[in-house]
């Protein structure tokens, strides 16, 4: 039993079932008698067979053991970073043809614009060697370009959402409506921990430079999965985890004794109410106890040599910077944490895009490239899946005034670029094509469900089989969709 916490959990009665049974007895007086009888028998006697297809762990041998997911919150412009459209330079300030726009819905921010002038990127692209005939990348990403041979660029992502909140929710949970478990929670639930001293799912946030949209904790929430699978955010300033340190004068043995007593009390309560969240709470308290030792060790950079620190760039010692978080992500990866979620905020460049994107890429370019290199040379990249994506793309037409010095771009869900590297991903390739305006996909579209299915597959999980029964039906990350994108897999 103890080997399989998931099955154990499913065997436990949920509250809903518990009260349902009480309600089914003849009357409340008899219910009380029945209650006693049920409680006397305890949790092990629950009758529902778990509908779990396979036990916790991969369904088949995985290519990747863990994930580092860099979410670029606010949606970076594919046109200024990855999707090279030299032809647009000759269409500066022309109106976007209706044949391209096809009456597509726009956000309220630009739907009232009199015209939609084409804004070519003002950044120069250069070609970088990869395993195909090279890949064009913007001058904004010189460091990322230097690891282009490790990266698989997808230019044909598309999503259904046109605004940040549903867009991020879709990417993080597989549906636009809030309330479902996040990707990381599904991975934690499906594969379990591979480091008993750290959470399965860690979240690191970097504040960006520009327009920042709300970043709610539910993006890394566990939804209806047991809450032990939710992301654990490591704070950037001060203590990485609040209230983790023992108060002055408290010895570690005292803490141990307290935890033992509390968990005994909790166990009594669990036997009374059979609420699985009680077990979660006990597990979390034990995890926190172990994290008192493991987190300081994790965040102490004394063991990093100067060459490594320099590689991540000048901000590496600045807590919360993208550089610091990338280094921390590598340290988490080498400690076996399953899912490391990084957020970089501030990509929502509706106006003054050139200025803001320069600042944003300045903050992420060197660290993210350093992360790839550092994982590579330590032998970790081949078993770590690295994801870099925003929640949608940005329009080819300018929002607001267009000049050759500045322009803005509105939200664009119909096509955008992202990249993957490491664990089971074909290195140095590009996948999917957009039209000459980077407005519509012309080849190999990939939707969010397809991406999730593919990533799950690389982790050794059949996305159709990793389900959780909730409100009377089996839920999964990919809902009823998700096709594997085989051409990008090794």
């Amino acid at each position, binding site marked *: 039993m103890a080997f*399989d916490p998931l099955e154990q959990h499913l065997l436990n009665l949920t509250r809903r079932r518990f009260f349902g*049974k009480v309600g089914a007895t003849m009357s409340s007086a008899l219910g009380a008698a029945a209650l006693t009888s049920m409680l006397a028998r305890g949790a092990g006697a629950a009758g529902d*067979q778990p509908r779990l297809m396979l*036990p916790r762990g991969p369904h088949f041998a995985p290519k990747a053991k863990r994930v580092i997911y860099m979410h670029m919150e606010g949606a970076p412009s594919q046109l200024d970073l990855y999707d090279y459209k030299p032809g647009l330079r000759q*269409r500066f300030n022309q109106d976007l043809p209706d044949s391209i726009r096809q009456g597509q819905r726009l956000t309220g921010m630009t739907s009232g614009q009199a015209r939609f002038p084409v804004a070519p990127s003002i950044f120069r692209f250069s070609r970088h060697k990869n395993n195909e005939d090279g890949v064009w990348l913007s001058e904004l990403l010189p460091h990322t*370009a230097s690891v282009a041979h490790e990266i698989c660029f997808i230019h044909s992502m598309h999503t259904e959402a046109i605004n940040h909140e549903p867009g991020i929710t879709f990417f993080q949970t597989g549906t636009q409506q809030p309330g479902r478990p996040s990707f990381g929670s599904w991975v934690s639930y499906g594969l379990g921990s591979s480091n*008993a001293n750290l959470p399965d799912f860690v979240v690191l946030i970097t504040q960006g430079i520009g327009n920042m949209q709300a970043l709610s904790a539910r993006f890394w929430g566990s939804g209806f999965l047991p809450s032990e699978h939710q992301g654990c955010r490591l704070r950037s300033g001060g203590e990485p985890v609040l209230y983790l340190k023992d108060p002055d004068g408290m010895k570690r043995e005292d803490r141990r004794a307290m935890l033992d007593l509390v968990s005994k009390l909790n166990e009594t309560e669990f036997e009374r109410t059979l609420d699985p969240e009680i077990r979660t709470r006990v597990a979390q308290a034990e995890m926190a106890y172990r994290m008192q030792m493991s987190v300081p060790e994790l965040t102490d950079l004394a063991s990093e040599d100067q060459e490594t620190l320099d590689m991540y760039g000048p901000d590496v010692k600045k807590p919360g910077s993208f550089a610091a978080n990338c280094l921390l992500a590598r340290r988490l990866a080498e400690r076996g944490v399953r899912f490391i979620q990084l957020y970089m905020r501030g990509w929502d460049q509706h106006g003054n895009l050139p200025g803001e994107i320069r600042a944003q890429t300045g903050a992420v370019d060197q660290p993210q490239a350093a992360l790839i290199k550092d994982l590579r040379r330590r032998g970790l990249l081949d078993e770590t899946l690295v994801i870099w994506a925003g929640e949608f793309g940005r329009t080819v037409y300018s929002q607001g005034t267009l000049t050759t010095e500045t322009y803005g771009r509105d939200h664009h869900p119909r096509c955008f670029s992202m990249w993957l590297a490491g664990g089971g991903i074909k290195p140095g390739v590009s996948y999917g094509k957009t039209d000459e305006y980077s407005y519509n996909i012309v080849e190999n579209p990939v939707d969010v469900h397809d991406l999730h299915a593919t990533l799950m597959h690389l982790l050794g999980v059949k996305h159709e089989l990793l389900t959780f029964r909730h409100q009377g039906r089996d839920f999964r990350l990919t809902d009823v969709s998700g096709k594997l994108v085989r051409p990008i897999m090794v």
Partner: protein
Amino acid sequence: MQELIQVFGRFHPLVLHAPIGMLGAMAIIEMLSLKRQDESVRRVFCGLAWLTALAAIVAVASGWVLEREGGYDQVIVDRHFNLGIATAVLSTLLAVSSHFKAHASPRRGLLVLALLVLVPTGHFGASMTHGEDFLLEPLAKKNESSTPKVQDPGQPALRESPAANVSTASLTGGAPAPNTGASPDLFSKEIAPILADMCLKCHGTSKKKGGLALHTPDAIRLGGDGGDVIVAGEPDASEMLLRLRLPLDDEDHMPPEGKPQPSGAQIAAIEAWIRAGAPMPGASAATPTDASPVVDSSATQAAPVEPVKPKGPAPASAEAIAAIRGALVHVEPLAADSTLLVVSFNAIAPTVDDALMARLLTPIRDNLADLSLGRTKVTDASAEFLAAMPRLRRLDLRATSITPGAVEKLAASGSLEELVLAQTKLSDDVVATIGRMQDLTHVYLWGAGLTPEGIARLRSERPELQVDAGDRLVTENLGPEAELKFSSDAPLPGVATAAPASLEPINKVCPVSGDPINPKYLVLYDGKVIGFCCPNCPKTFWADPEKCLAGLKK
């Protein structure tokens, strides 16, 4: 004592009939006394009521004991039990109320209520012993033939066996992959117990529902009235698996709703077994002389359908796994249907030494496929132990204090494909050793003390070997695009263009603003290249080109 209690429990099927009969009798008495009240009759009723209450309580108690033996569907047991308690409580209240001769209505109400509760109580009880569909089965099955198939007398029946330990089944090899040792043993060890627990009550010697029996390999091969139940090698064409996978409330789902259901791991085991060709010991129908007991794991006959490689290791013991987990070391199966294991010491790396590692891993050494010892304190002393692991495919010794001596010993391994030696204190001495490791496909040597010459030598000696030495992290820049030029003079509708004589602009100042031109913004008009100061001026220009050009000439 335990046994006596158990016997008491088994009296439940006897005792339970007493309250049923007596409640019925009381109902008759009550009806007869509707017309005429008689004190002696009332006293009989009173005595009967107390006897009923006592019998009901005894029935509940014995039922509770019986239920603890297990084997019943928990949902139905719970319903039956709760209703049984209700019956006992109502009977007791009825007995009390029978003493109040002046008030007949509480008594009558309780009697009616008790009888009403009795019906579902009895129904759920009977569902457990006879099956849920017992009552209406003749109606439902009216059109189906139920001729039982003849059983091969040479085949001993399956023994009922305890359920496999499902929760550890995957780790300890509950469902071996087809290529890791599927054999008739698989059937005896994995499949037969599942069939015995889940199927034989209805598809065995005593009952053959649907003409199907599953108690011997031959009976399984024979199938039921609907044809074959398994198609070797094709799980998705096998009726048995299809039925198992149907939703629980589907009419064709097996085992029927209300009966104990196999776990996901057990279904997966059956699937793996069928995919492996459904090997079973004993004869096929053609050679009945080879009959042998199917549960006998010493059966040595070859699999009848597909030859399988006897390669996979025996599953690791659950105790060994528990010990590893107890030390906060991560262990997981390589895949759900594999007995191979992945072990990582990441969580406690700085405290791991040779002794601890050897103590935890010795019992599972045959199962290890992937081992991470990065950042631990293991030394050369462990190299021999690691090299002797027969199935170790990937070994991570990153940032440990191993020396070239350890690599020398590791070279003896016949299974290593990936070796992570980054951040170690090796030297060029290991180049020859690694060169000798023929199975190796990938080696990581960043910061391992090798010189660039050593790395180069290794690469030239073993060109097919991937050598990650941290020296090829940066890719080549193939050059930038041409200088950026923005324009909007791609042929606009209705504007004729001619080839320009020269690409040099004819003007020095912008015809719209009068500012100096920027060579980025050029427009082609009437065979001439015209420069502008900014990308917006061409818009104005196109509105009336001739007027602008006239202005330029002035």
